[in-house]
């Protein structure tokens, strides 16, 4: 049970961190769903081509960063609507992965890669789980103790303030897009590399859930950890219940959405009440 909680948590934590940096910089990035999918696809393909996980994931990061910078250019330079641009990235990745998969392997179904060695694991968890924990641990240090992190937070609070003292918020935002794309690539890699296969639309709304978890955690790293643990617990519980009680699988799949929704509403209701007094 605990092992499955951690397995569920890994991609959520990694992509959640990406979303957290964006939140701290003052914008909500809904493209993480598509970036996870792209990360899963590119990391397994490049890993198989290069026969190396590290190289494969790095190349996948490069691909995702290029996609992310397209969105950055549209939003920051051409003043596109942030949410519409984010949705377009999500569409782009599901279109691009299916088209490339069909063009390269002439199938739109599940892709297996037999030549990949099993991914290194420790105590039953893949390496990316420990990377996620390490990244989570250093995030408060980056945000609270470094000049870059403090500037990022100022940018999130009031962008004009940063520009008025002669610092560029533009490059800061661009760096945030790059960081978010890299973290989402890791999240995607944790999905596809763990099983050695790519399933169409394997991100399965994890990006959206991660986004909600970040909001629930108050855009703080510790809050993110708590909300991720809570969510993963319920999802693991649901998987258990499905086997034990013979509940229809659709209900189990719906459970995370319902719980996230209830938590979101409770959270905002409590916050609204606190603000009133």
């Amino acid at each position: 049970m605990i092992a499955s909680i951690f397995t569920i948590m890994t991609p959520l934590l990694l992509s959640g961190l990406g979303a957290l940096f964006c939140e701290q910089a003052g914008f909500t990035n809904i493209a993480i769903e598509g970036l996870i999918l792209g990360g899963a696809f590119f990391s397994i393909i490049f890993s198989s081509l290069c026969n190396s996980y590290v190289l494969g994931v790095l190349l996948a990061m490069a691909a995702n960063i290029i996609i992310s910078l397209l969105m950055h250019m549209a939003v920051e330079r051409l003043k596109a609507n942030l949410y519409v641009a984010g949705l377009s990235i999500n569409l782009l990745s599901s279109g691009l992965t299916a088209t490339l998969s069909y063009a390269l392997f002439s199938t739109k179904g599940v892709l297996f890669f037999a030549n990949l060695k099993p991914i290194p694991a420790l105590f039953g968890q893949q390496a990316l789980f420990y990377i996620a924990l390490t990244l989570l641990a250093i995030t408060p240090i980056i945000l609270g103790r470094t000049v870059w992190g403090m500037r990022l937070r100022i940018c999130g609070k009031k962008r004009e303030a940063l520009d008025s003292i002669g610092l560029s918020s533009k490059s800061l935002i661009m760096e945030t897009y790059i960081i978010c794309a890299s973290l989402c690539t890791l999240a995607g890699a944790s999905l596809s590399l763990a099983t050695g296969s790519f399933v169409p639309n394997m991100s399965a709304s994890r990006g959206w859930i991660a986004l909600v978890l970040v909001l629930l955690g108050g855009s703080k790293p510790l809050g993110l950890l708590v909300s991720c643990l809570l969510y993963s617990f319920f999802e693991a519980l649901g998987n258990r219940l499905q086997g034990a009680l013979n509940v229809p699988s659709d209900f189990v799949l719906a459970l995370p959405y319902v719980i996230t929704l209830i938590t979101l509403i409770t959270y905002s209701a409590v916050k609204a009440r606190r603000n009133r007094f």
Partner: protein
Amino acid sequence: MKRQALMILFSLALLLCLCLLFSPTPMKSFSSFVLGPFESLYFLGNLLNSATPLLIGSLGMCISLQGGSFNLGGEGQIYLGGFLCAILSIGLSSLGAFGAVLAVLISILAAAIVAGLSGLFKSLWKTSELISSYLISNALILIVNYLVTGPFQDPSTNLFSTQKIPQAFRLSKILLPSNLSSALLIGLALCLLSWLLLYKTKQGYEFRLYGSNPRFCQYGGISPSFCQIAPMVISGGFYGLAGSLSVLGTYYSCVKEFSSQMGFNALAIALIARKHPFLALPASLFFAWLSSGSRIAMQRTDVTVEMALIVQAAVFLLVTCTFSFKRKKSL
């Protein structure tokens, strides 16, 4: 207008590049994609038919976006509307035409309530309606999936769908041999009605005002909770109608996940149309052309339907951009 023309030219160019990259017979794929939908009355009628639910959904989104509400739950609301309409039509078949109207009204109401909930949460506790409507919709899709493939599945077929609705409830076809149903006329009428609502009534004025400046509205004595809930309810109702008309006019039963991508496409259309009901008409035709073109190209040549998604994504990315072709003046 120049903008829209540029957009179409751009998407054609992108499509050509994609065909050259991914198709073994690029010119054949490209021509069947672009011209295929206009080759015969059959294809043209199907194009118009697939544009109809998109048009209705996007009209609702125009109203909701003008009121400053972002209803991201269209997918689930269409699905719920279609499902309720299908099972109610079977249950109410003894009532005749009155039963059909009742079934559609109940479906509209149910979808409107679901969307209205997100608006209610927003007005009570400032819960982001964008996130809550999306979450509710995703949970709904899974629950309806269970109902369609479980208790309500038609035992006589292997398809994941409910039983067929009675003959008398089906909308008439207006352009045989294609699937085009009279739902298109309802869509056109709604186009006019939404324009009237937005630009010729007091409520429409309040929505538009609230959408552009909520605080100003409050000073002016316009109830914020009305302006937060009503646009969501209206867009939910439009989505419910789109779903039930797809069932009555096209599918004749609730097929599993028939609404997939419809909600997002309707949203995209509303944004391309810059929230104006009249512009939603050409925009929904454009989207229907993309999807039916890709289907025809897939049937005739070796490309995937998902190629259209890439073109859609590019249109999405550019649609809200502001291009200024003037060079910046140097200081």
